């Protein structure tokens, strides 16, 4: 199995551990990743309000580069916001001749041309569908039995494109978590919004969303995420959310491939575990005795 890899800006900085763990788990599963050469920002959620065409063109630039490497390739994207932007550009290139023409007019400025021939895949889609528990379970060398995991999907890997899971009641992480030997925390918050950039721009509103999710995760040993924005909102603001709630809401938050990597016996430095902002002492204690 081979994929073109689009890390996106967060994975080079605030979400470096997501990049490390994704590469390590894919390598251990025998999957070949080729990073798209000279990739640039997808525009995040900032480009679209400023210009819809700019947002599509920034993402299409990356698809054009991917097409140069493998015209029928699949682009693996771990960040949900990048995934959605690339997916929208792909949709416009494939299904709307007028948009395709305008986007390519814009890309002329950087000597590129995009047709939409590559497929855009979220990391969770690849882990759950292409690999699945049938490929991942045999790689588990250290059972995580005794841990309870709250799967947090967030929004943009599920909506508006329901590609690989139920966009309201997602379940695709459950067989993967069970394959590690861990139990799934039963909750209703897996697909509820984390507040996204409101946590930065309108904290009094955004933190309400964070607080509700952390509160619902009580009883689990950890939350797993598949998006740098969700991860940051859930792990960096726990002290403030606890003050708002008037109760302690600290909990370990890992990226899904970090959890899978632990079960596959990968070392914590290979998974960037020291880079996470919320890995609690009792969690470390628990995994060292597994």
């Amino acid at each position, binding site marked *: 199995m081979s994929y073109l890899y689009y890390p996106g800006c967060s994975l*080079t900085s605030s979400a470096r551990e997501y990049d490390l763990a994704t590469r390590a788990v894919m390598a251990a599963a025998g999957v070949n990743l080729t990073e798209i050469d000279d990739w640039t920002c997808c525009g995040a959620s900032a480009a679209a309000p400023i210009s819809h065409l700019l947002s599509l063109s*920034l993402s299409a630039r990356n698809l054009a580069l991917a097409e140069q490497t493998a015209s029928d390739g699949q682009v693996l994207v771990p960040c949900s916001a990048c995934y959605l932007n690339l997916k929208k550009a792909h949709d416009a290139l494939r299904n709307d001749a007028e948009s395709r023409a305008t986007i390519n*007019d814009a890309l002329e400025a950087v000597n590129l041309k995009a047709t939409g021939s590559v497929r855009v895949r979220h990391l969770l889609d690849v882990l759950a569908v292409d690999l699945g528990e049938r490929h991942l379970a045999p790689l588990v060398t250290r059972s995580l039995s005794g841990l309870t995991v709250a799967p947090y999907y967030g929004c943009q890997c599920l909506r*508006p494109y329901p590609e690989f899971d139920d966009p309201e009641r997602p379940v695709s992480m459950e067989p993967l978590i069970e394959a590690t030997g861990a139990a799934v925390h039963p909750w209703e918050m897996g697909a509820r*919004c984390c507040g*996204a950039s409101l946590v930065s721009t309108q904290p009094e509103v955004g933190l309400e969303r964070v607080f509700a999710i952390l509160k619902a995760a009580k009883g689990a040993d950890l939350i797993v995420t598949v998006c740098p924005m969700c991860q940051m909102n859930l792990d960096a603001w726990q002290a403030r959310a606890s003050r708002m709630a008037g109760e302690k809401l600290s909990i370990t938050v890992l990226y899904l491939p970090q959890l899978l990597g632990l079960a596959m016996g990968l070392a914590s430095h290979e998974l960037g575990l020291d*880079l996470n*902002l919320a890995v609690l002492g009792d969690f470390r204690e628990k995994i060292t005795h597994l």
Partner: protein
Amino acid sequence: MNPQSVTTLPTAEESSESLDPIRAMVSACIQCGTCTGSCPNALEMDLTPRKMWRLVILGRLSAVMESKTFILCSDCYTCTLRCPRGLPLTEAMEALKGIAFARKEARHRGSRLFYEKFMETVRRHGRIREMEFMTRYFIAMKSPVAPFRFAPLGLKLMGKGKVELGGGKSGDTPLGALFEKVADLERTPAATFRKEGHQ
């Protein structure tokens, strides 16, 4: 919720032309309120999404711009997914943010500067550099307290080497040419760029 009348017609002096593309996106709205019931941030909004779509259809630009509703959209796409008319509501919210930023609405200044400074960094380097972006944002905000809200997190991230300072770790591909071409295309009236519908 604001009991603002949603039945008043636009006054003659208010030009609501900039709302036209968004009116077209939501004109099939049946006012069922599924969007409001689905929105995680509806309780903090001054107008419910349903009421706001009604004002958009009526062309009440200033009433819409006075509202915080569209700024509080966190792009979760739940309303878009559930809308029984299949309307691209999240994209319509994004477009409203765009109008407010273009009008330099004073009450949305903080959000506008956050978005603008983000894109300025992308234009200069091709990728986001948190340090440069946040510095530009704080300078533009001209607020002595703004940096302090982010300082504890910033220091935590720097301590872990998770802030891209631009020391050559990441690529540097200026995108000025692409940004300018897009702006040119948008100035050309012939380029009637159609908004994406959903699905």
